[in-house]
């Protein structure tokens, strides 16, 4: 059974001809109704993700990748179709989501872990591992505002890896930092994959897609135009973005 079953998902946004965002604007234009047009972002998207599979979603900017991930994560509601989640999902759509530069590393681990769905007990139990993986034990009581961007990103990765449930959903996020840290991230990632975790990954980088993914999907104007091996999809994606024939 697929851990994730996306069936005929469609999504539109209603775009008004005039934006009114205040009570005052609505009151002043009470008798001037707005016209709306539907902007179709996704249409008939169907695919399955199997246990242990790593699937990449590629596509040009504005093709609907992020909207699709948000629907899968449950942040947006689909207009039509179904997303059947047969396993726990950890969506990481932004690295270090929720962190606060005025707090130290320990408090930020609590904050980021809680946002990713960990219980306080799980965070407490994993604190040493998280700080060790991020190589930040000596700086645990230092406020995040004094960290370099690389150190902060390492902490965010360490929490994210600790919070992984059965399915990991990643939006344009892959290892940053020095070579040693990138290698450790890749090792941890391969271990997760070997342990049966499924990954849904949005990326523009053919190297990442061909190295880590079993399968890839090419999204164009809100529909799936190709579902094939990473190599073939990367080739088609490059042809699309460069306009080559």
């Amino acid at each position: 059974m697929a851990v994730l079953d996306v069936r005929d998902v469609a999504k539109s946004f209603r775009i008004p001809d005039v934006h009114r965002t205040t009570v005052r604007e609505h009151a002043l234009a009470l008798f001037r109704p707005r016209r709306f047009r539907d902007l179709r972002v996704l249409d008939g998207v169907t695919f399955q993700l199997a246990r242990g599979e790593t699937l990449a979603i590629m596509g040009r900017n504005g093709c609907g990748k992020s909207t699709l991930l948000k629907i899968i994560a449950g942040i947006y509601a689909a207009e039509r179709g179904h997303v059947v989640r047969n396993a726990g999902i950890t969506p990481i759509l932004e690295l270090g989501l929720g962190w606060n530069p005025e707090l130290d590393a320990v408090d930020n681990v609590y904050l980021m872990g809680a946002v990713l769905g960990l219980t306080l007990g799980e965070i407490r139990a994993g604190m040493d591992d998280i700080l060790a993986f991020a190589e930040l034990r000596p700086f645990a009581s230092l406020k995040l505002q004094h960290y370099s961007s690389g150190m902060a990103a390492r902490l965010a990765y360490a929490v994210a890896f600790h919070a992984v449930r059965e399915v990991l959903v990643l939006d344009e996020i892959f290892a940053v930092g020095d070579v040693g840290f990138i290698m450790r991230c890749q090792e941890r990632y391969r271990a997760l994959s070997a342990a049966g975790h499924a990954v849904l990954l949005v990326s523009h980088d053919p190297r990442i897609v061909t190295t880590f993914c079993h399968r890839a999907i090419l999204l164009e104007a809100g529909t799936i135009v190709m579902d094939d091996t990473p190599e073939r999809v990367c080739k088609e994606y490059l042809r699309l973005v460069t306009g080559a024939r």
Partner: protein
Amino acid sequence: MSVTRSEALSPAAVSGLVWTLVRTDFKTRYQPTVGGFVWALLKPFAMFLVLMAVFSFIFGGDPAYRFHLIIGLFLWDFFAEATKHGLVSLQAKSYLINKAKFPAWVLVISAASNALITLGVVCVAIVVFLAVGGRAPGPLACGLFLLYLVQYILIVTGFSLAASVLFLRYRDLNQLWDVAIQAGFFVAPIVYPLSIIPERFHFFLYLWPPTPIIQFARAVLVEGTIPTARAHAFLAIETLVILAIGLWVFRVLAPRAAEYL
């Protein structure tokens, strides 16, 4: 439409998230300042001293005026602070709603937490103030006061739930609410006794939620009287109506909150 089989956060994860948001918010707000949490208490205390100095010339004939004033002011301060923070709660943490999946009400509840902590401390201060003034409230009075506080919190929760999602669509609601709060300070009988207003207007003043809470709290804590069963029923209905409307508006609008950010 989405179907979830094992994706929802466990109650332990949700309570952990609320606790973490409250704790870190409290830490960020008060830790960097000299005196920390004392600043949160200083505002209503300073207001009390100023208003006491000014209005005691007018209402000085009433020996209980200072007790009425401190109860009114502190309870009002909670209402004003908690509703203001509740209203902007989803917008203030929009980066979370737009990128993570968890119940949005968690943000609304945790936003009012600082006002709630302050309320807890000032309630103790009110009881101490009354005891020092020779009007120590009994267990029944304290119990009823607690009941009114619970209803007060439910009213603020109902308002905050509705206002937080409406604010994402109407971005000047916070300015309108600021005006309402300023006017509301004088609609509620905080600095003046309700008795100076003609009785035929009392019903309308009681529709403004802080009025019954403040009046009932004064009755049980200062006057030693218990409001009638009818008055209690009025407050219970007002609480339920506000909470029900708040829950309904939130339930309808919250699922699409992320699309308005």
